[in-house]
């Protein structure tokens, strides 16, 4: 048996590394002179901050897929909803500085001939309300969707396909100008948040640190959920749903809770992502994005939380590097990566690392996280 302490070895190592990055990267950005070899330019800082948001999103998916067997192809939608909630606040913050100078209506609404603010835009001028919506919008959608789906015992591939249908429907809906979310241009041209300019180094460093803290927090929340008795039931649902139900557990309630929490976590990731990237558009809802999240988790190591974060970081970093270095070879590399990892590394990269580590130290086998789809 592996250690059952709250912070086990793999989480400890990852959190330690994360702490080093959280402190080190902003320091290297602000304290070191631009000529220094270790200097991290601000664009790089924001890029890493973006990766950390993706990592949090992967942790959210791992919570439902790795521990509860719900392969959601809709987490991109929860991420995007959180992003839109934050984006709407940032749009309202622009105020009269937009191209049309309308103090209330965002530019695109003036352009589309809106007379007044649609009802669902009210309240987003307040930061606390936007933050609440970052949690509520994806959380509520996940709750309603899950409430229907889990109660009707939609499982496996069928669940995956309808979550994909959900994100696809949202993609089409958000592309419509009539929806009042900026159509295919989405929301952009953000100026500041809480009075701090989004283009200033200080704000960017703060957002970076917040992203890192959110990732650490997400890992801890996930760890806490999976460590408790509740988490053990989740694993039971994953491995033998009918048996768990026969033992007297209300399976659908367990699933619903973890699905909703996971969606909120994805929403937070989206909310931190948008101010760092500076835009949110319907493309974030694209089903391919949601599949890519699954890939991150599978590549890093499913059912480990840390592995999911690791997988996200590896894939998006490789993507950034390959798309600029070898634009034509990128898809070949990504495609091969998926095929090889699925066939040869069912435990993901984390499993490989730990296997190599074990081989050296000759330690007993830790708790297996074998999962049956």
């Amino acid at each position: 048996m592996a250690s059952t302490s709250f912070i086990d070895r793999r989480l400890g190592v990852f959190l330690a590394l994360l702490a080093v990055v959280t402190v080190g990267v902003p320091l290297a950005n602000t304290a070191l002179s631009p000529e220094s070899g270790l200097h991290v330019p601000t664009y790089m800082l924001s890029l890493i901050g973006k990766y950390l948001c993706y990592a949090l999103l992967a942790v959210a998916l791992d919570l439902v897929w790795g521990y509860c067997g719900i392969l959601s192809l809709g987490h991109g939608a929860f991420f995007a909803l959180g992003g839109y909630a934050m984006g709407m606040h940032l749009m309202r913050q622009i105020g009269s500085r937009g191209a049309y100078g309308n103090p209330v209506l965002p530019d695109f609404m003036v352009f589309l001939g809106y007379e007044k603010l649609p009802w669902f835009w009210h309240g987003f001028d307040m930061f606390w309300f936007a933050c609440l919506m970052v949690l509520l919008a994806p959380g509520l959608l996940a709750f309603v969707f899950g409430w229907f789906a889990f109660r009707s015992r939609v499982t496996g591939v069928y669940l995956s396909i309808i979550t994909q249908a959900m994100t696809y429907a949202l993609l089409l809906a958000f592309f419509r100008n009539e929806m009042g979310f900026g159509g295919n241009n989405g929301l952009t041209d953000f100026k500041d948040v809480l009075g701090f300019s989004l283009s200033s180094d200080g704000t960017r460093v703060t957002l970076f640190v917040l992203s890192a803290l959110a990732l650490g927090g997400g890992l801890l929340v996930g760890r806490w959920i999976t460590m408790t008795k509740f988490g053990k039931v989740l694993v039971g649902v994953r491995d033998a749903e009918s048996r768990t139900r026969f033992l007297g557990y209300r399976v659908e309630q367990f699933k619903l809770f973890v699905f909703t929490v996971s969606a909120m976590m994805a929403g937070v990731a989206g909310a931190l992502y948008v101010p760092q990237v500076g835009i949110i558009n319907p493309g974030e809802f694209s089903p391919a994005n949601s599949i890519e999240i699954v890939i991150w988790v599978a590549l890093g190591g499913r059912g480990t939380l840390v592995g999911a974060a690791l997988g996200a970081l590896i894939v998006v970093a490789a993507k950034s590097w390959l798309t600029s270095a070898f634009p034509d070879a990128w898809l070949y590399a990504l495609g091969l990566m998926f095929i090889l990892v699925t066939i040869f590394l069912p435990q993901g990269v984390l499993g490989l690392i730990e296997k190599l580590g074990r081989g050296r130290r000759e330690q007993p086998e830790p708790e297996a996280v074998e999962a049956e789809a």
Partner: protein
Amino acid sequence: MRILLTLTVWFGLLLASAASAQSLEDLARQLPEGSFNDRAEVVAKIGATGDDRAVGLLNALGEGELRVREADGAVIQVKGRGSKAVGYDPLTGDELGPVGSGSTESIRVNNSLRRAVRAAIGLLTLSSPDAGKRLAAANTAFAAPDPEQIEALDTAIAKEGDAAVRTAMEQARAAAVLASDAPGAEKVAAIGIVARRGGTDALTVLNPYRGDADAPVAEAADKAIAGIERAQQLWNVGQNVWFGLSLGSVLLLAAVGLAITFGVMGVINMAHGELIMIGAYTTYVTQQVIRTSFPGLFDWSLLIAAPLAFLVAGAIGVAIERFIVRFLYGRALETLLATWGVSLILQQLVRTFFGPSNREVGNPSWMSGAFPLGGLSITWNRFYIVIFAVAIFVGLLLLLKRTLFGLQMRAVTQNRPMASEMGIRTARVDALTFGLGAGIAGLAGVALSQIDNVSPNLGQSYIIDSFLVVVFGGAGNLWGTFAAAFTLGVANKFMEPFVGAVLAKILILVFIILFIQKRPRGLFPTRGRAVEG
């Protein structure tokens, strides 16, 4: 009977006038002479000659371009004004050189003469030797009813040999009768004839008579209009059904291969769309080879491409199964990841070899154009795609239910160890089954290349729809896929006129999500112990 009698009378008159016919040249010379009424008679005679050259002459008269040359009294057509005026022979169109101002005198026309000219021209085109021109003339006459043309139409009807053209002429005559001051009974009969034509232009003709002072006429018009509108609504429904069937056949084509690889084998084959794309590119390459080497075979290109596409996509499918999917049986959700990887590689391969832009795949002549079916216009390519989709479906059904391979395939998917015990080479059957699904995707690509852009992204636009169709129908059931494809297609097209294309699609997606709650395993779920496997 009445009409017949009139026709006979007119036919007789026509023969009589033909006997005393003067040449067109003589008649043209008479144009400047006499009163307006005399000249209107001359114009009518010109119309009755049926001479092709008369149309140009009468047009020139109507336009006021016909003038008399004072030097020799000849009738010429003058175009342009002042120093730029040029003379032409009105019958042959030959240029006669510049015309000095004052050397000619215009032939004056008044409104009644203009009407006579129009009627004569109508009669002339109505007697054109080209049936298409006669039909067009009849339709023009129908759209602009003119009582003056009744006689001309009667003449033309008497001579007409083509049934369709005659019907159009009779309708045009009826419309003209309506516009004339004919007695009410005649008008009611005319309304009946016009109503039989149906369509929007009949409505336009009939609409003014709804409030006619003559009560029977108004009543008949009201009834006829109601009837036409009802028919139009029916045709609209028919059109939506046809569009729906057409969309359904596309969905069926895209999904039926997936019904094998995903529905029967349980592999979440995300590369399915790319196999369709490979089929479309195979068609493109085949057409390129035919264009450069055997241009005469172009009309056969799709029939040649179909088996090739099946083989190419099928071979890729077998390779995917042998090298990747084979290791993932029992881990259904993980096949999603690996095949997604395959789809990325296939997309990039095509992009590398053929470039990222759209490739042009041509329509063979037998797939171009449209044919009318009642009030509908049906394009040949859509029509053949429906036939093709159903044919593939039936073929697949026969293969599964009537052949040894089909039997083995069903045995392996239902109970693998037992099938293996019975001596079936399950590994081989797996590979061939996957190859079959992939090959059918390739065939779908041949058909879809006719209606969609052939680009590396072709597959991605079908993959989500394909999965939804298979899931909606119930995985593992081919009839379910069939029913699902056409249900979704027709439902989509019926909603489109009300809510628009995008919203219709969104509503369909929401409907499927809700439907799956009610029937978690689709329209026609597979039953039995294998389900929990």
